[in-house]
């Protein structure tokens, strides 16, 4: 009688392993193996032995460091702006119903279906030099504004708009765990909007915010299209920098080194994401 459940558990474990086997194998083949290859390829040179010269070069080259620094702060600022922009919309959608809420949701999720190239084109047409904004300002005899096109603000604006839907969906899933009754209970005891947000809602969606930030950082750190089309040529973000080092400079070793460094930063944020997920699950128990 005891062996039967044991065999069922064993069978369940095996079928579970089989279910995850394919994605795990793909992960090993398409992600971890190339990473390992790149890592080893930048440190070990057949016939010459080990050398960390490409890493020493990256961390001693002022231009590379400026690129890394630009990437870091564009990533940080864009991630924070995405969460800050998505939060009021998420709160509105969580606690309001009706046709206006449905319209707001449709508009907020719209960027999800727009390719990056079109976002960049629209940005240039609207905010670029002699774009719609400039045309309107000139029409009312006002001076043109400095365009964010090819400035660090350019990719930030584009990336915030592009990533808003995913951030919104992640925050909405977190807010789904905050019951209307728990908010009403706080109101009933005299709490105002700010107190309810900081004392009741925010602690309950902490893990969702961390997940949203981690997801954003992972995507933004290696973003290419919008930084390439809207960002400055110098310094440049890691995505365009890697591409230019590889293609224009024909320097695969330094491009791979940049990729490994980018991966290391992303892996660190990935770890934060995994920890947040684990904490969130623990909190749900």
């Amino acid at each position, binding site marked *: 009688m005891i062996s039967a459940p044991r065999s069922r558990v064993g069978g369940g474990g095996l079928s579970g392993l089989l279910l995850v086997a394919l994605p795990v194998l793909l992960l090993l083949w398409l992600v971890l193996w190339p990473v390992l290859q790149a890592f080893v390829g930048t440190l070990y040179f057949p016939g010459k032995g080990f050398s960390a010269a490409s890493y020493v070069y990256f961390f001693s080259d002022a231009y590379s460091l400026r690129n890394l620094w630009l990437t870091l702060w564009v990533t940080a600022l864009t991630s924070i702006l995405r969460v800050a922009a998505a939060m009021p919309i998420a709160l509105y959608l969580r606690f309001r119903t009706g046709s206006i809420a449905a319209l707001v949701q449709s508009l907020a999720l719209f960027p999800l279906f727009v390719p990056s190239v079109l976002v960049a084109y629209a940005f240039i047409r609207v905010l670029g030099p002699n774009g719609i904004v400039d045309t309107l300002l000139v029409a009312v005899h006002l001076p043109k504004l400095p365009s964010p096109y090819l400035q660090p603000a350019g990719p930030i604006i584009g990336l915030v708009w592009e990533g808003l839907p995913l951030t919104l969906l992640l925050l909405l899933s977190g807010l789904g765990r905050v*019951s209307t*009754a*728990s908010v*009403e*209970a*706080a*109101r*009933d*005891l*005299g*709490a*105002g909007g700010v*107190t309810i947000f900081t*004392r*009741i809602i925010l*602690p*309950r969606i902490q893990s969702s915010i961390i997940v949203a930030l981690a997801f954003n950082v992972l995507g933004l750190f290696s973003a290419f299209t919008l930084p390439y089309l809207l960002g400055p040529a110098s310094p440049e973000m890691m995505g365009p920098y890697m591409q230019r080092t590889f293609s224009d400079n024909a320097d695969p070793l330094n491009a791979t080194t940049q990729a490994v460094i980018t991966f290391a930063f992303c892996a660190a944020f990935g770890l934060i994401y995994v920890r947040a997920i684990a904490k969130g699950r623990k*909190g749900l*128990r």
Partner: protein
Amino acid sequence: MAQVQLSGIAKTFGKVTALDAMDLTIDDGELVCLLGPSGSGKSTLLRIIGGFEMPSEGTIAIDGVDVTDLPPERRPTAMVFQSHALWSHMTVFGNIAFGLKLRHLPKAEIRERVEKVLDLVGLTGYGARLPSQLSGGQQQRVALARSLVVEPKILLLDEPFASLDQHLRERLREEVRDIQQRLGITAVFVTHGQDEALAISDRIVVLADGRMQQVGRPGEIYAEPKTAFVAGFIGAMNMLEGTLADGEITASGLKLPAEGSGPAKLAIRPEDIELAEPAEGRTVTVRRMIDFGAHVVIDGKLADGTHLRIQTDKAIRVSQGDQIGIRVESWTVFTEGDEPRRYRSDTVRSFRGARYA
């Protein structure tokens, strides 16, 4: 302690009327139950009193002060929610102290008042625990303590025990009644459980389809229902479709003396039927017998197959298919547009004027 006065309260959601012109006064220190089936408007009425919904029409006054347009945080009310609505990231102490901290009370006073209310709800020493470390009943006590600690004038309870098992529900409702009476606080309690309403209320407001069907003391509502809905909703009731003619009502072959003419509803409580020798128009065929220990319920069928429940002595034993005679001790006849008429025993002693003590 306070009085609540509802005047012409109505609420519509789009084209749907949730509440229709209600007038009700809840006296100081009274516990009033809002009782009705799902969709009757009882929770909407409670939420209007609490300020979570704005009435489409009418006014609410607490102690003579119009609070109709005030939000929940500015009303002297506190609500206990069905889902407990405890904040899982705060300890029991944190949950209860939340309202006091918002009032910027000194720390020592907050601690003293929280400990006092924890003692009141029987949770002394539980302050450091998280809600997830408590049972369902303990969580509901914390929710009650959180509402009581801010000393509201009116305590609102929205089906607070709906998620608890029967035994715990019975115990907690007694405790809530006891606390309410000790504090002398005015309370409005929403429930769809008639037992709960009958057990703890000073008065019951029976609601159906957004309308008040009857307001009265529990015994009065049970014994003298004003509408066929109330008669069928409160307690067990045999409700038979019948016809009034020639000084009697005929329903499913059962004939009982009654005044009037035309279609009518005959309402008989199972405990108002006694067993007797089988006779013409007084015979029931036993379908099954249910032994509740303290009493026996016989599920029988009348001549046309209509079910009739009879509650009788625990010593009675009958079998399926047995023919048993019945004698009806009291019954009520409901006719469209008229006041209900009540009768006692086969001797037709109308007691319409009598009032239940």
